[in-house]
């Protein structure tokens, strides 16, 4: 998520006032409050007990920038994902050769391997977002992490399912409790646990905090997954593509795999960005409604 990595506190105070008003109109007109058109969303968000701590302004400057940026990037991202994935699927399923001993079953690998890479790469992203959330209290990081985990869980489940479908005819078993498979199953539970935990609190911020801690603890699992096939003897084969020697994969199989991996990666990024966008907009709508309700209450009390 490149847009998330621009917290830039020093630049925030100067850029916040100009960026806050332009970001308000897109969401303001539907409700169209007749009273003063001040930038509402920024201030009512803070709970009375929480000190504003100077970050109150850049908090909402950033999501606005994120919305505008992703609005421009997202259609291209979806287009590129569809294009690359379509080409990769055609190449992998129709035009690439079978394997000399696996036969046509090798084609499961074109889904399995990208899903495994995305499961781990996505979790690395989750760990980075959690770090940003815990240390810099970046509001977009919380939302991105929250929207990332269901997608990550889905990708990991697909990795496990396709691996199982391949393992039955090739190895002779659906499942074995070897170090690689067990550690990926743990990764799946971590994704599910994170998705459940961040949604388990009435107060969103506490859920985000707990989820970030869980995600960082779970990051220990990543090197275990990666090197499980080297550290322990396992049923799962060791890495074919990312190894010190030349890839143990013929280019007629390797290149379509790379295209599939790129396509799935683009689709994954587009899906997570779209979900995060929706979450940002959802939060804005809720804050507008809250502000409106407050204003109503205030008006009633003054009379």
């Amino acid at each position, binding site marked *: 998520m490149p847009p998330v990595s621009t917290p830039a506190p020093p630049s925030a105070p100067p850029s916040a006032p100009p960026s806050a008003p332009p970001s308000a109109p897109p969401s303001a007109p539907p409700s169209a409050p007749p009273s003063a058109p001040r930038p509402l969303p920024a201030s009512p968000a803070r709970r009375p007990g929480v000190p504003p*701590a100077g970050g109150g302004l850049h908090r909402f400057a950033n999501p606005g920038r994120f919305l505008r940026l992703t609005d421009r990037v997202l259609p291209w991202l979806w287009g590129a994902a569809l294009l690359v994935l379509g080409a990769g699927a055609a190449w992998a399923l129709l035009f690439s050769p079978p*394997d000399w001993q696996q036969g046509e*079953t090798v084609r499961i690998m074109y889904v399995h391997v990208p899903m495994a890479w995305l499961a781990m790469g996505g979790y690395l992203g989750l760990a980075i977002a959690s770090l940003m959330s815990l240390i810099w209290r970046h509001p977009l990081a919380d939302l991105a992490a929250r929207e990332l985990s269901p997608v990550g869980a889905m990708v990991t489940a697909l990795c496990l399912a396709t691996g199982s479908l391949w393992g039955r005819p090739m*190895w002779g*078993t659906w499942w074995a409790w*070897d170090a690689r498979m067990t550690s990926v199953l743990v990764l799946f539970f971590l994704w599910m646990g994170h998705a459940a935990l961040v949604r388990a609190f009435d107060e969103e911020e506490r859920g985000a905090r707990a989820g970030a801690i869980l995600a960082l603890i779970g990051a220990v699992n990543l090197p275990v997954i990666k090197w499980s096939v080297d550290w*322990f003897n396992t049923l799962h084969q060791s890495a074919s593509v990312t190894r010190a020697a030349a890839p143990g994969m013929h280019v007629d199989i390797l290149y379509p795999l790379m295209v599939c991996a790129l396509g799935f990666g683009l689709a994954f990024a587009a899906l997570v960005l779209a979900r995060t966008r929706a979450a940002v907009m959802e939060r804005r709508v809720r804050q507008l409604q809250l502000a409106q309700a407050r204003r109503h209450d205030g008006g009633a009390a003054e009379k």
Partner: protein
Amino acid sequence: MRPSRKRRRMWIVVLAGLGLGSATALTLTAFQDNLVFFLAPSDIAAKSPGPDRAFRLGGLVEAGSLQRAQAADGRTEARFRVTDGPVTIPVSYVGVLPDLFREGQGVVTLGKLGPDGLFRASEVLARHDETYMPPEVADALKRSGHWDPAQGAAPPAASWNTLSPDTPAPGAQDRAENPREQRGG
């Protein structure tokens, strides 16, 4: 005040990460001997688990060792030897073998080692080595004598992973570069 709090949080995260990381590393090192999915024939020769314990035996199916026979109940019994180089253990198995099973392939078998030295397997799983190649390329390697799959792993990937299936088998020049790959065939 703000930066110092941020820095404190960063230190807490770093310290917690260090603690967690080293704890995991220690645990994994401590369990490394127990976290094995299978035992190699050499492990068993060094320290036999005894005839009553079921365990997994892993290694390569020795070239020329596979024999199929009809068992008493009419099912097919496969007999083969599993080797890791220095030590070889005979295995007998009644049942369906997985698709990848062949001589020279890695296998993991679950069963008990009898007092007669025969490993009676109740389950045979085939391992896949990390090589993927089209049938034509495998044929070209076999024909040129670069590789006999029954003898074990494929030659170094750099020698074949860009090989075009349409070109004739790799020439004598390749062979001179990899003299050690010429066994078998």
